[in-house]
């Protein structure tokens, strides 16, 4: 092997190791992980939102043809949400705008992510897995406000 080839190979290896290290740092420092197996949650068929501690909420969301239940979730700034998502029919999915939330909703399985909303605003999400003729009308949003008297969900 030529010297220059060895250099190119080492540089490539180094690049990938640096990337990997940065990802492991993000996982350790910011808890940036990908969804994992959920085994401590019973299957659910209705959507709910409830408070589990002062600023923590648990959301059970159902995706179906062609709506998210709930489709609007109104919460105060600083809320942390434990989101559990499943599908009642075929595969759906969504990504919340400007947030590291991106989940597939698959029938027969529960998906989970924890997200914290530090800034007020509207966080839009659209169904991003093809789910039939009206797929493009399936969307929802988080509405995060400075003061919310009663956290609520709309569309269910």
């Amino acid at each position, binding site marked *: 092997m030529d010297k220059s080839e060895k250099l190119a190979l080492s*540089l490539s290896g180094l*690049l990938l190791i640096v990337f990997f290290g*940065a990802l492991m740092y*993000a996982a350790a420092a910011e808890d940036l992980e990908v969804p994992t197996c959920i085994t401590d949650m019973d299957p659910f068929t209705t959507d709910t939102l409830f408070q589990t501690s002062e600023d923590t909420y648990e959301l059970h969301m159902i995706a179906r043809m062609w709506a998210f239940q709930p489709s609007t979730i109104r919460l105060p700034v600083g809320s942390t949400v434990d989101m559990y998502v499943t599908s009642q029919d075929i595969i759906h999915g969504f990504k919340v705008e400007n947030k590291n939330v991106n989940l597939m909703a698959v029938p027969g399985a529960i998906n989970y992510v924890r997200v914290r909303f530090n800034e007020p605003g509207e966080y839009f999400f659209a169904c991003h897995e093809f789910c039939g003729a009206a797929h493009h009308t399936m969307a929802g949003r988080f509405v995060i406000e400075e003061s919310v008297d009663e956290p609520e969900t709309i569309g269910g």
Partner: protein
Amino acid sequence: MENKETEHEEEFKPKGAVAFFILLIILFSIIWFGLYFEMLGRV
């Protein structure tokens, strides 16, 4: 002629390709870390 060509090839060192490759790695790092910090900003 034939000999000269072989000689030229023996001493061929891909300096330009190495320089190109280093630039490529730098470009890759810029793009990748751009998106990485986008992700950190969305926490």
